[in-house]
């Protein structure tokens, strides 16, 4: 019994560690900056040949036109899920729902704006 308990505890500790949450700033730096740019202005290192320019996350006007749910969906399922570009890929296998929610809040910080 005691052995089983220790095993269970170890298993729990391991799975928590394996799914350790990243900070939204680190997730943004890892996955978003390549296209949306180090300043979040949509001028990432990848944009030269793109047919559609990535969203400027500091643009309060356009960002306030998107609800948190829409931003969540775009990150999780990719651009086409909100009728936007295929160049924005789905990050649902990379990020947990909690991390995506954090990223949405990070975007609100960058645009200094709310929906509506």
């Amino acid at each position, binding site marked *: 019994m005691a052995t089983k308990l220790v095993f269970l505890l170890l298993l729990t500790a391991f799975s928590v*560690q*394996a799914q*350790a949450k*990243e900070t939204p700033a*680190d*997730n943004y*730096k*890892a*996955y978003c*900056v*390549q*296209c949306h*740019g*180090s*300043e979040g*202005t*949509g*001028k*990432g*290192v*990848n*944009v030269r*040949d*793109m047919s559609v320019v990535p969203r400027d996350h500091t643009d309060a006007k356009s960002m306030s036109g998107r609800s948190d749910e829409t931003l969540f969906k775009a990150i999780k399922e*990719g651009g086409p899920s909100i009728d936007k*570009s*295929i*160049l*924005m*890929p*789905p*990050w*649902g*296998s*990379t990020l947990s729902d909690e991390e995506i929610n954090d990223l949405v809040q990070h975007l609100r910080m960058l645009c200094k704006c709310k929906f509506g």
Partner: protein
Amino acid sequence: MKRMILVTVLGFSGAVLAEGGMLQESCAACHNIKGPATQTLKAAFEKKGPALFYAGNKYRQEWLVSWLQKPSRIRPAGMYYGGHIKPGPKGDEIDTSTLTDHIALSKADATSVAAELMKLKPHNDLIAKEKIESGTISKQMGEMAFNKFLGCMACHLIEPEYGGVSGPELYTAAKRLQPQYIVSFIRSPQAWEPKSMMPNKNLSEVNIQKMVHYLETLSKEATNGH
């Protein structure tokens, strides 16, 4: 005297290589050769080169032998890309001053290191799941499918001067990588590297197979062009 030292050094390097010593001594400074895969972004940001602990599941041996003798950059913005960009007038650009070149090995060392790397196969299970269906796809059709409809070019160069630069170049991928690895990695990048910069695009089996055919088409063209 000099000759004696040279012979000693050569003899030593041969002995070290025979034990896979170069991997431990030199390669391990920049590459993860023992596993497990990187588990945190903080560690991913520090990466100086791709993980090699599953090299035997990933690379084509003949390509390793040739590349190690004449290494060229595969990721235009280095690894990790965020450590090699700077703000420019039109947006972020690659800061080439921060990029370092890979050392070139002699033919003998390259052959021996490649042989050692090919022994590293911890992911035979992932490879065994994959089958390659033969087929071809024209460059034009491939471009339509994978750039217009799937958007690979956002992060990858599909020609030497066309595409994104944060990921590895795609036009040489089929020359570098085993087809089963390509299929497995596209199907689930996170199964290989939990902190991979590559998203899982949830491609259908048909599209994954077509992707391999397209990469083969691109690589053949790149070879012919050289």
